[in-house]
């Protein structure tokens, strides 16, 4: 999507969040809190949005050259990861004014985003291969994304969800990564070890499933795209 436009969207969301929730949720350093969730969400949203159509969109190349179809979702994921790392620099500079404490533990965000990227790649492999056969996957994904966004505690804390709906938050894999990232970027303490275990498990399982589905279907791509 490009680096510039990649900035405008989260910035707009951040401004809206500040206007609506900034003062009345009682969260200290609210802009830092919200942004630490938003950058992870937009990485996820961009990377899946780009990768879903990556195999179908490369029909011409796949039909005429012997290149692995795997490269297309992979390259989309890597290029978004690169964009994320660039925006992280801007984030680090800007968040100085919103109470970010510079500390060596901030470097833990690198393994964290790496795990998130593996999770996203797994999901991308799944979505882009299913999209070859059912052309509305992109539309369906675009429809459920806003729901996912609001059900993920990005603008608010998970404590605001009442007990009977807690399961929605607990079984939301995206939130587990945002929780890890936020504890690195926002909380003063180190993320707990079990949070790492949860994220590593989600990333590995999602990748393995996505990889399996992709490799089962990839020989059929040429005739279907």
């Amino acid at each position: 999507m490009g680096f510039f436009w990649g900035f405008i969207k989260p910035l707009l969301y951040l401004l809206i969040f500040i206007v609506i929730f900034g003062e009345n949720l009682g969260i200290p350093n609210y802009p830092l809190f919200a942004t630490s969730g938003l950058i992870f969400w937009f990485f996820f949203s961009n990377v899946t949005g780009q990768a879903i159509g990556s195999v179908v969109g490369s029909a011409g190349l796949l039909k005429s050259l012997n290149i692995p179809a795997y490269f297309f979702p992979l390259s989309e994921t890597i290029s978004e990861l690169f964009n994320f790392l660039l925006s992280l620099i801007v984030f680090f500079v800007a968040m100085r004014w919103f109470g970010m404490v510079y500390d060596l533990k901030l470097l833990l965000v690198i393994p964290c985003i790496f795990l998130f990227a593996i999770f996203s790649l797994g999901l991308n492999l799944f979505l882009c291969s299913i999209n070859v056969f059912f052309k509305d996957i992109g539309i369906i994904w675009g429809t459920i994304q806003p729901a996912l966004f609001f059900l993920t505690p990005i603008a608010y804390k998970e404590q605001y969800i009442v007990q009977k709906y807690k399961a929605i938050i607990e079984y939301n894999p995206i939130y587990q990564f945002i929780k890890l990232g936020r504890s690195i970027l926002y909380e003063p303490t180190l993320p707990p070890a079990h949070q790492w275990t949860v994220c590593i498990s989600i990333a590995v399982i999602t990748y393995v499933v996505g990889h399996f589905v992709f490799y089962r279907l990839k020989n059929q791509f040429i005739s279907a795209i």
Partner: protein
Amino acid sequence: MSNDLIIKVDNVHVSFWQNNLGIYTLKDLIAQRKLPFKSKTILNNISVEVKRGDSLGIVGRNGSGKSTLLRTIAGIIKPDRGTVIVNGTFAPILAIGAGLESELTGYENIKLLLALYGTARKNTNAIDNVREFSELSDDVLRSPVKQYSSGMLARLAFSISLANDSDILIIDEVMAVGDQGFQGKCVKKIYDMKEQGKTILYVSHFPDDVARICNKAVLLEGGEVVHSGDSQEICQKYSNLF
């Protein structure tokens, strides 16, 4: 495998899922509640051998599996059974239009395909060679490929295949839409390549062209090689089909 064999296709079987219920969306799948995919055999027990320097014509009716065979030889399609052994490099298969990215300009397509084949680094004149051979003007090459006529697409596609200095040249009905001047030029170029000892795989619906250019040929019918041998003889058999 003896040294002079460049391509050896051994008992290859290729099948695809065919979607014959017209279910192309998840919405339809949920509405109709049945999986639309059925395996359909495209190539059945194909065995073809090509010697280095040979030119092999592939003829057959529409849908007899010619393009699938080319793609299988080029490694783009993986066979379910059987083996394909190739001792050489390929130029990209550019059937009319396919293989060119329609949103990119002519130049971008040239660069992309040359880069993917590693030619651009070895040969900096490659882009000029493509432009010269295709006789497309600078203005045309700067505009997106989707605006090209089929003849212009064929010119670009064929010129890119030639620019890759590969051992095996694959021509898939690319010449059918070019004007006479370009067709003549292509035929001349193909003869040059033959003289240089390149191997040519040639798909065409014009038996006369095949007989002229190729020394060997195979006739495909329903995904099987029904006849193979001398090109004159095979083309005669092909003509007798209709």
